[in-house]
């Protein structure tokens, strides 16, 4: 259950960046090949936010599709797991070019000044 530790990380980073401001929404980018379950993050997020300034914050998760590029012919293919076979030249040597993201993309804070 590594998602719990990772969610604690997310909450700590957002709190530090918010510097006391009131946060309304947090947007995460989690790749489908990142070995992280968005559902588990959601489950842990509410628990981790309790008794912090983030209690009640909306969590938005953008899931990016997996994409690989063949090292031999340069062809790009969609991946649903962190490996695959090029459908043009049959090579297994692929570089994963998308889908391993694990980052806090942005957060929305309440405007405090005019």
């Amino acid at each position, binding site marked *: 259950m590594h998602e719990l*530790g990772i969610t604690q*990380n997310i909450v*700590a980073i*957002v709190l530090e960046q918010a510097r006391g401001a009131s946060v309304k929404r947090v947007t995460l980018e989690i790749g489908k090949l990142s070995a992280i379950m968005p559902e588990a993050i959601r489950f842990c997020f509410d628990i981790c936010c309790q008794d912090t300034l983030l209690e009640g914050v909306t969590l938005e998760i953008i899931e990016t599709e997996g994409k690989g590029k063949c090292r031999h012919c340069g062809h790009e293919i969609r991946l649903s797991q962190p490996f695959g076979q090029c459908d043009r030249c049959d090579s*297994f040597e692929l570089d994963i070019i998308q889908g391993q993201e694990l*980052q806090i993309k942005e*957060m*929305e804070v*309440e405007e405090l000044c005019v």
Partner: protein
Amino acid sequence: MCVTCGCSDDQNVTLTNVATGKLKEINGHHTHTLEDGTVITHSHDHNHKHDHPHNHLSEIHAKMHGTTISLEEKILQKNDLMAAQNRGYFKGRNILALNLVSSPGSGKTTLLTRTINDLKDKIIINVIEGDQETVNDAQKIKETGCKVVQINTGTGCHLEASMVEKGYTELNPEPNSILMIENVGNLVCPALFDLGEAAKVAILSVTEGEDKPIKYPHMFRESKVMILTKIDLLPYVQFDVNKCLEYAQKVNPSLTIFQVSSVTGEGLSSWYDWLENQ
């Protein structure tokens, strides 16, 4: 994990030096100095709120004009930074650090003790043992005469770069040596956490399923080496070696694979050659 210093705050992580029997709590009080000079001391045994005063008002105002703040911050950044620091430490001392990963019971500790005993006269090997509980593995390693520390992660299911940093600080490994980091037996989470190692070495035994590489592709993709252990048991188990190798190469075509038996010694020489040539 505390984002300010990268240490874990949710677990009771302990470090045991089996030579001295000394046990240390890795989590304790920490002091951080912020950019503006504010010094904060806090402990990690509770949900600290970081509700200390900040003098950043002007900055907040500047940022508040837009309601959305773009962060683009990697969630595991602190661990990655600590891992980079570890990598520098190893490089500076010409230490080959290997992160040994596998499921529980694959024969990691047995392979390690055999390797240490066989290479004793040629290379100095030091060990960081990671387990949730007990110092049993460290005791076994200690019997070979090499330096070892045990990290108990408590509820944690993997080692993190900051724990390894505490481990080698305690060990003080010699230059031009090998540091074996035996991770917690788990094929999932350790794939995500860079420890600063030169390579992850995945260990798989023939008493497990031959499809493990495609069942746990993250780990086998992240590893540079795979060691298939307990091959002396092949006559007694249903394990299709060719299938296993095929799966492994599918997931990671550049994987270096060794097939060994720590009991009979079969295949160990090519693993030793690899170690010596790194």
